[in-house]
């Protein structure tokens, strides 16, 4: 059964928890109390709802993808998170956390970013609400997502390159955590996914569940048979899945198979990993027998992460959702498919979900499939062009 909230120790079953340096523990306790208070406070909820409506542009529509449906032979609905301000679902969480940071009296926020979408969303929220903002980004990701670097800088955010490790999302999280250990008294860490120590996985899920709650309200009696979302850390997926879990709907998370599962160069932590502890939480990880965490690989910077949110680990073990994977090459086909049939260029991350429904068309015949189109692909155009040449 899905859990309304994790237990007192921040666990979803055997996953989650709070494996953090002592220096951060009081801040995590403070954050948990502040979030509980804010979430139960109609004034905070009212402020957030107004911003989601008038600034972000919610509710995002559900679009009947008729030409794609005709081509695949089954009905496809798209939840249009790509239409949210800044171009992805990340803004739902960023704006809520920055609002919470302001309520907590923290003048500065920091964030990690992979594809740059969470960084842009946090930079945007910080500009809107008047907080100082620093974003940590791996140098490899700075290279492949330079457009988003400029966007953050235009918004008044400092982008700090991370050179440790492979220079991707995992390293950016490490560096943001390290900053936070030193600045915790004046800084809130706006983590970008349902990962990290308790209360982050729970809090970020609550901030992203607007995707699924809205979808249920928009669909009414017309419920889908299958709901599909891509999974890196897993915030768009859990935001969509959580309200649907327990309704007898097939929930499918799509991880990055990278260059192919068999090559070992992928990001399929649920499919191929084993339980361990990374970034403060117990979850499925790509790791060796000694517990050294391995580098993930994906064409999409947002799925290039060797861990996953602990609630997904819990959903997988309980069979509340199932998790599949799609390779880099397949995701590029997904981009083309949606661009040419519906006039929508999806983010490389979201293209993994599109590609999976095309690949699984056989088993999906006669069904209604709702895909969470978590972000738009403007940021990826240059990278896609290079991958194709």
């Amino acid at each position, binding site marked *: 059964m899905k859990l309304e909230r994790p237990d007192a*120790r921040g666990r979803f079953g055997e996953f989650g*928890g*709070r*494996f*953090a*340096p*002592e*220096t*951060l*523990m*009081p*801040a995590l306790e403070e954050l948990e109390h502040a979030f509980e208070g804010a979430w139960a406070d109609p004034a905070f909820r009212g402020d957030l709802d107004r911003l989601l409506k008038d600034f972000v542009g919610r509710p995002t529509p559900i679009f009947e993808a008729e030409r794609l449906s005709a081509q695949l032979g089954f009905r496809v609905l798209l939840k249009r998170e790509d239409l949210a301000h800044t171009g992805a679902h990340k803004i739902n969480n960023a704006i809520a956390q920055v609002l919470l940071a302001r309520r907590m009296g923290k003048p500065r926020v920091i964030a990690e970013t992979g594809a740059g979408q969470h960084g842009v969303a946090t930079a945007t929220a910080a500009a809107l609400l008047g907080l100082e903002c620093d974003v940590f980004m791996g140098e490899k990701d700075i290279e492949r997502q330079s457009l988003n670097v400029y966007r953050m800088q235009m918004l008044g955010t400092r982008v700090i390159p991370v050179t*440790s*490790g492979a220079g991707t999302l*995992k390293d950016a999280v*490490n560096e943001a*955590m*390290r900053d936070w*250990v*030193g*600045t*915790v*008294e004046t800084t809130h860490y706006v983590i970008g996914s349902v990962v990290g120590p308790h209360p982050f996985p729970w809090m970020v899920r609550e901030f992203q569940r607007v995707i699924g709650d809205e979808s249920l309200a928009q669909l009414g009696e017309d419920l889908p048979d299958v709901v599909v979302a891509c999974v890196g850390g897993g915030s768009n997926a859990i935001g969509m899945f959580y309200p649907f879990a327990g309704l007898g709907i097939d929930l499918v998370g799509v991880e990055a198979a990278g260059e192919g599962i068999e090559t070992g160069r992928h990001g399929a932590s649920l499919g191929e990993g084993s339980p*361990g*502890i*990374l*970034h*403060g939480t*117990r979850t499925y*990880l790509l*790791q060796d*027998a*000694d*517990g*050294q*965490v*391995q580098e993930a690989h994906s064409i999409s910077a947002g799925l290039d992460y060797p861990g996953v949110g602990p609630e997904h680990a819990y959903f997988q073990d309980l069979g509340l959702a199932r998790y599949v994977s799609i390779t880099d090459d397949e995701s590029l086909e997904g981009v083309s498919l949606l661009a040419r049939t519906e006039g929508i260029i999806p983010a490389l991350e979201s293209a993994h979900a599109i590609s999976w429904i095309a690949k699984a068309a056989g088993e999906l015949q006669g069904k209604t499939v709702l895909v969470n189109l978590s972000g738009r692909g403007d940021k990826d155009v240059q990278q896609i062009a290079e991958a194709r040449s």
Partner: protein
Amino acid sequence: MSAERLRLMFAARRADNSTALLPFMTAGLPDPGHAVEMFEAMAGAGADGFEVGIPYSDPLMDGPIIQEGGARALAAGVGLEEGLEIAGRVIARTGLPALVMTYANVVVQAGPDEFARRAADHGVSGVIVADLPLEEAGPIKAAVERAGLGMVLFAAPTTTEARLRRIVEAEPVFIYGVADLGVTGERKIASSRAGELARRIREVTGIPLVMGVGISTPEQAAAIAGSADGVIVGSALVRRALEAQTPTEAIASLATAVREFRAAL
């Protein structure tokens, strides 16, 4: 009881009214072949015991110097087994107590009991896990203590009085007082928070207190020495091991540095 060696060492320092010097060094530096010799040189220069770092891929409590040390050791093939072997040989050769420091995932993947048993087999006295707060420490602390080793718990400048009381009630073999906010690394200016934290801890317990994080010069060590049973110096030493051009130079440089810290204490 390996933890006993640590307790005896602290008792001896209290008896002669001095402060223990516990150098931190990543296992496998300057290279695996010279690691033990480098620890021996530090022992000869006046170290009272060691914190031996078992490298981990994602050390989020560590600054750039110890990150680099860990990455270099991992690249040289030093994992848990090699790290424990180095610690064991250091203990056997120097007769000094040593703790191992690592991160939770390394312990959990080995299995807490298996990890503790292997550490005990190598003569290790205690275990420090940088991302293991009191709330998550239960199973690992129990396993470590079952094997006769001591578990270390942290207290930081941000730790509230209520948390501090719970940490003390758990009876760690010593309290690692986090001398400064932030990750490990050298600081130009001594922490303004260390003295206050030491005083707060001393007020509530007689459990040995060892201060570390950001103590990078003999002067900084001396400033906190009077308030603590021991001082951990890490990044300032690891930097010397990384900067040295040859293993011989690293060994000499570390001996000199430890002698300077010893003199200041």
